[in-house]
């Protein structure tokens, strides 16, 4: 594999401006679903925290900075990444070092997404290089910014299709004083999602709402000690269950631990929470995990299952996250967009990358042409 690792933003720009062949853009490469088999361009050579102001809750870092380095810096100040990005390595059996640029480029959020928002909601500014080699910036490092179009949101989740992010500025939040988990046992999927909905529709501010069939239904409550005790107590009055100190089990939910090392295709579905139990029932999945109060479903299906066909009646967004090469060649990774939306997306891609330099494994046919 031919890997290009620029060390500076200027080097990155030069290498894109001079590129003669399409490239697959990665950070640490830990979230890649497939590969083009061609040239890989990584931002991991651009590394380091350039500014951290705990009192302003902001951090600016080069895109290739290891996530672990960011988290270490934050923890010394008692802060954290609020959107709780999942680690894809266990699920995808990938190795390598996740980067902060990769987290934002893939808009990776964990259980706390339902309370505080997604990665994209915390990204304040980006610097990136487009497909012609221009160094561009958008947003900044302030909390509120409506100056011009919000290309920060567009770059978040663009997965290397619009440009190579070289620097990110983002908002962080303080660690809570206390975390507890309300564990409710014995609910079927329907009752579980109903309970999660009740909790999320209460004034008691839940920071995680998941259902792991066979294990239990979980609500996470965080904050100052007195407030946590009060809210957890109120939720227990409403829904029953037992209060467990700490939040250890949430890393497993975040990273979809039950599916690690187990054979089968893995799908990630974003749905209307109340539809979730029926979608799971119709999916024929071998195993399911509900997060985001039912709004996020992880499914493990028999290899080659066309899940989208089975649940066509529901409004949902289904991503095929893990499958063998034969299935990936047949089923699109991303949910196909309606034609008018697909035209807009393709139009934007053509503006940011007129030469078609940035390819993902989904674009393999073009990539192999050159």
């Amino acid at each position, binding site marked *: 594999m031919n890997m290009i690792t620029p060390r500076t933003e200027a080097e990155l720009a030069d290498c894109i401006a001079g590129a003669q062949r399409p490239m697959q853009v990665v950070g640490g490469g830990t979230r890649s679903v497939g590969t083009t088999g061609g040239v890989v361009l990584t931002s991991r050579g651009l590394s380091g925290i350039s500014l951290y102001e705990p009192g*302003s809750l902001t951090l600016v870092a080069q895109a290739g900075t290891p996530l672990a380095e960011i988290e270490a810096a934050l923890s010394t100040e008692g802060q954290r990444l609020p959107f709780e990005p999942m680690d894809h390595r266990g699920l995808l059996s990938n190795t390598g070092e996740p980067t902060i640029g990769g987290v934002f480029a893939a808009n990776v959020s964990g259980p706390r997404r339902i309370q505080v928002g997604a990665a994209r909601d915390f990204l304040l500014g980006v610097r990136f290089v487009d497909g012609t080699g221009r160094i561009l910036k958008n947003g900044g490092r*302030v909390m509120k910014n409506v*100056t*011009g179009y919000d290309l920060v949101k*567009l770059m978040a989740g663009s997965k290397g299709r619009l440009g190579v992010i070289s620097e990110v500025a983002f908002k962080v939040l303080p660690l809570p004083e206390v975390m507890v988990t309300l564990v409710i046992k014995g609910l079927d999927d329907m009752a579980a999602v109903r309970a999660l909905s009740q909790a999320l529709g209460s*004034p008691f501010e839940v920071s995680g709402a998941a259902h792991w069939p066979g294990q239990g239904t979980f609500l996470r409550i965080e904050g100052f000690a007195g407030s946590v005790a009060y809210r957890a107590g109120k939720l227990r009055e409403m829904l029953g269950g037992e209060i467990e100190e700490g939040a250890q089990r949430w890393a497993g939910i975040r990273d979809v631990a039950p599916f690690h090392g187990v054979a089968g295709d893995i799908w990630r579905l974003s749905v209307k929470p109340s539809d979730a139990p029926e979608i799971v029932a119709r999916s024929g999945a071998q195993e399911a995990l509900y997060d985001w109060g039912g709004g996020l479903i992880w499914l493990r299906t028999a290899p080659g299952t066309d899940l989208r066909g089975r649940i066509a009646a529901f409004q949902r967004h289904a991503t095929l996250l893990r499958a063998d090469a034969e299935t990936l060649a047949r089923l699109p990774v991303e*949910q196909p967009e309606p034609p008018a939306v697909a035209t807009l997306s393709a139009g934007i891609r053509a503006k940011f990358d007129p030469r078609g330099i940035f390819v993902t494994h989904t674009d393999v046919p073009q990539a192999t042409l050159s």
Partner: protein
Amino acid sequence: MEMPTPNPAILAKKPRLVERLLRVLPQDAVIHLEAETRAYECDALTAYRCPPMVAVLPSTTQEVSDILHICHEMGVPVVPRGSGTSLAGGALPTADCLILGVARMNAVLETDYDNRFIKVQSGRTNLSVTGAVQENDFFYAPDPSSQLACSIAGNIAMNSGGAHCLKYGVTTNNLMGVTMVLMDGTVVEIGGAHLDAGGLDLLGVICGSEGQLGVVTEATLRILRKPEGARPVLMGFDSNEVAGACVSDIIKAGVLPVAIEFMDRPCIRATEAFAKAGYPDCEALLIVEVEGSNSEIDEQLEKIIAIARRHNPVELRESKSADESARIWLGRKSAFGAMGQINDYMCLDGTIPVSQLPYVLRRIGEMSKEYGLDVGNVFHAGDGNMHPLILFDANKPGDLELCEAMGADILKLCVEVGGCLTGEHGVGIEKRDLMVDQFAPDDLDIQMAVKDVFDPQWLLNPAKVFPLAASDARRAA
């Protein structure tokens, strides 16, 4: 403020345009007599006015699609309008444009408490979205101060914020989906009742695009359960620096107030004279509000007050009742009115890193002396969103221009310290020509390239956001 010269060829199409519009719209939805189009000559940036050629008030997405289809075919520029409360001139017409007002589209289409969203037509006012769900103790979080009048369409166009966005985020963080009509009449659905679809985040770039990418006709919005209660604490300090440091310490301590509001001495004095809220006569005043049950509020206020005491406050007043809360908020809520009593004023909206607050306030004080214009500062300190109010006399020749020049200098200062020109009001025409101070030509070009995709002929709200010189070639094409 320069606007493009009206195109005589487009003005000549007016009779034909009106005739075609009347075929797809009821008669009372097409406003074309000069006496009547005047009602749409400006928004809340009233210094600039120009009646449009025609105004239309559609009731459905289909009608919006028909209107845009006609304008697209005839090459007529379209300026979308919510309630016309923009402080930045976002809905300012040109003489050769059609104003597309969504005010009649104000229905609630779906309310879903289990899944915590509401779907509304975009002309519905911000406050009436909360009005539709409050009997079940839910609310829609973004709360711009014009929320009684401003529409969701305008909120989406400007990505509006409000006093409570420190905790709940701005419009983009609470918007789940839109139905939008493109300039050629195509209707697109983006997002919906589910979160974070894959693909490119088109919703993210539509929000805040100031009506330049399409006309949003319906919106799916996140609604939240109301907290059990809320109470503020008021604190006075003898310098802006100390107040700024206190803000930073509160944020660092892990308390997440819903609002941290800041007023400086000129503003405190003006509001005291006007509203008599009993504020202390000091250099800087903070109002910090927290939410939760009574005991949770006590817990948080105790922590905040402990932090404040370390900064030697000259006044510390914790609310214990609804009555006391109202009195603490009284002055802050009348601040703009109080400043308006003294003189005309221009309200800026630059945002800066919170750490730069003391420096920027000091520099604004110096500029005030240099220009000979009084400035009061009242703003959302928690997120660094400044609102300097520059006082001037509209009847004194040259004063408006002087005030605009000082405003530009303050905004450039915001950019210089790592901030931006506008935190929640939008660029519109007001800050259009300052965009070059924040962005390099390529940074503007890539933004304009997005508009090229949605509106290749640049017919939608064309003379806004980007400096005319920068967008000239595209608008002329």
